[in-house]
């Protein structure tokens, strides 16, 4: 099985809201796949379809080689899920919830459970109502990470965790990857994605807008350049957001057009030049802002 998750042309509407609008997503077996997009872009809806909690209106979805709706129970034994907003039963202790969810998935590794409790610094004796948001998140994380499964589906799992715990989480995911597990990680935290993910998919308004490795995506970004020229230029072909101030110019250029643009500048005589390398952040901001518009 090459792909752990293969989704194409997925549609889902809630009343008048078109939550998924032909979404595509491919997660290869054994990779950590970043799933990014602004709030309300359809990440959680996609995950719920994959978990067989929602039935898609049209399109196809395959999960671990099965149908997420028809084979839900059998598939669920092979995966663990951490929701973005964990709510616990107020009268059950954290340890009870971990054991319950683990057992419902078909058992968890007691050694790993103890180790994770230690690493996440979680007191399993507190009742669900007494946990803070971050600690509730830890309960779900420990239950998922201590299960022996092929696929982890994590929906914004670090929301509410402090930076120290976020670091522990990253270590854990890196270990999962080493042991050959597939991870679908929905996240807003760029550093987390850059550090952990082999490939990412960015979605917006229920559609996939970018998908590929981080190196691929970096090529899609723009370099910012500001230069002081010997002779003033009023137009430079193929650049974005050009600002001309006498002999000074500022603009952004797509990475694949960088060479042409530099030739154009040197022809005018360059006195000084600073260039800012492309960052993923800009790419994400560009897509996120697109959603707001």
């Amino acid at each position: 099985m090459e792909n752990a998750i293969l989704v194409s042309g997925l549609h889902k509407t809630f009343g008048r809201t078109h939550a998924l609008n032909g979404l595509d997503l491919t997660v290869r077996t054994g990779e950590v796949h970043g799933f990014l997009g602004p709030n309300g872009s359809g990440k959680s809806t996609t995950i719920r379809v994959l978990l067989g909690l929602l039935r898609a209106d049209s399109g196809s979805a395959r999960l671990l080689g099965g149908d997420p709706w028809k084979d839900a129970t059998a598939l669920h034994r092979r995966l663990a899920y951490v929701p973005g907003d964990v709510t616990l039963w107020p009268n059950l202790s954290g340890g009870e919830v971990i054991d319950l969810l683990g057992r419902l998935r078909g058992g968890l590794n007691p050694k790993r459970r103890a180790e994770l409790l230690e690493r996440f610094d979680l007191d399993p004796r507190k009742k669900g109502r007494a946990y803070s948001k971050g600690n509730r998140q830890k309960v779900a994380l420990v239950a998922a990470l201590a299960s022996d499964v092929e696929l982890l589906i994590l929906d914004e799992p670090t929301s509410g965790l402090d930076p120290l715990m976020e670091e522990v989480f990253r270590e854990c995911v890196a270990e999962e990857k080493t042991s050959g597990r597939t991870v679908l990680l929905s996240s807003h935290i760029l550093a987390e994605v850059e550090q952990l993910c082999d490939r990412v998919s960015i979605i917006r308004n229920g559609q996939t807008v970018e998908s590929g490795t981080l190196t691929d995506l970096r090529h899609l970004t723009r370099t910012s350049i500001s230069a002081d020229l010997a002779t003033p230029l009023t137009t430079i072909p193929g650049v974005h957001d050009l600002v001309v101030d006498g002999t000074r110019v500022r603009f952004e250029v797509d990475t694949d057009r960088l060479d042409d643009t530099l030739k154009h500048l040197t022809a005018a005589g360059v006195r000084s030049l600073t260039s800012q390398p492309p960052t993923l952040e800009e790419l994400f901001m560009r897509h996120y802002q697109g959603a707001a518009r």
Partner: protein
Amino acid sequence: MTGLRHLIRLILRRDRVLLPLWVLILAALPAVYAASFAELTPTEEARELYARTTAGIPSIEAMLGPVYGHSVEALATQRAGLTLLIVALINVLVVIRHTRTEEDAGRRELVAATVVGRHAPLAAALVVAVGADLVMGLLTAAFMGFSGGSLLLGLSLAFAGIVFAAVGAVAAQLTENAGPARGLALAVLGVAYLVRAAGDATGSNLSWASPLAWSQYTKPFAGDDWRPLLASFGLTAVLAGLAGWLSVRRDVGGGLLPTRLGPAGSTSLTGPFALAWRLQRGLLIGWSVGFLVFGLAFGGAVSGATEAFTGNPELAELFARLGGGVSLTDTFIATLLGIAAIAAAAYGIQAASRMRAEEAAMRAEPVLATGTARAPWALGHVVFAVVGPIVALFMIGAGLGLTYGADVGDLGQVPRLIGAALAQAPAAATLTGLTVALFGLLPRLSGVAWGILAICLLLGQVGALLQLSQVVLDLSPFTHTPRVPGGEVSALPLAVLALVAGALTAAGLWGFRRRDVGV
């Protein structure tokens, strides 16, 4: 108290439908009772006979409270004894809903961080509850035709509510969550009712220990005595003051009763049924014990009814004829079991609604994302919603049978009354089935089941008095339950009810397996 005005408006905005509804319905009930008494017992003699032989016997006084006169209004006042209980119950729920529930959900924090005084949230909830009670009291008086007596009846009803609004306010300060706070306040209400019932059944002064009794000792339309309401007023002031005092001595979100640590792990939570047991056992135990206690208490009061006949064969014969050969004790127990059937249905709805609550709180999702299929997850709860009310009814039958049987020296009453109690189960199960069907097919309308139960309750309570046509009365499943003990039992209606309940439940489970979860 800064911000009090805004908080009051917030509560009124949130309850803009519910609040006027209960105020109006409860205010109308005494007038409806009065109209029906005017119709059913038009003559002075008839009412006098009714007061002496029915309203005045210990078992009825235990259930409703004492009767002080035999005018239409005085009889209606006694009949409103259960209205009193409902008013108190609603006040507890309203106050906790706007205090502890808000804190529990974290919304209080949002409000507390704005320019709002420390006392304002609690005060706002109390002001709204007390205001609604007073409006209800005035409307009651208006519906009964303004007079000293009707005004006193209205105020008595209002004060039953006001006292328990304050009880709810204190309970809301003690526990960290809304559920236990409700449980605590309702337990106080239950004890108050039992103490009054015991006192009135035996004619002792014990009743004075219950705030519910104060609202009845005012004797509206029978020598109006305003003084007991002073006690209600005093207790309210003390409790409200206590609640206010407690509320500033604890953290927002914290309670005064400590929360304990739980186990570090579990070996017993092995599957969906084990989880359902953990989530449902509190309800099951609470309702079973409650039903047993009520059964034991009222079983003891029943025999008082027979005493009224000793040395009065004329009366005994009259009642034998009135009841169609059914003894008065049997009639009384059958009435009691009719009310128990409604309560058991409420339990069934409550237990079945847990599924929707789990789904809405997003606690169903992580469980359904494991190897647990939807059907076993739902069935875990459905089993409790179906079997739970049967267990509770068994308990009330056993309780009634034990104390009544001991009284008359015939323990054969135990199986007889258990059987009579269990005959109520099919009707109650139809409401459970309806709740499951709504959950599976129309999840957003899950709350409608409570509305249907309220309609059944109204049909049962005032339907016959209003002389509604049998077709309308037949809409309620409770109409089809035979009047037992004493009445004739035919299996057909019970079997049909059970079948309807089963079909509704199956439809709900079928729907749930096919629909989106988390909508």
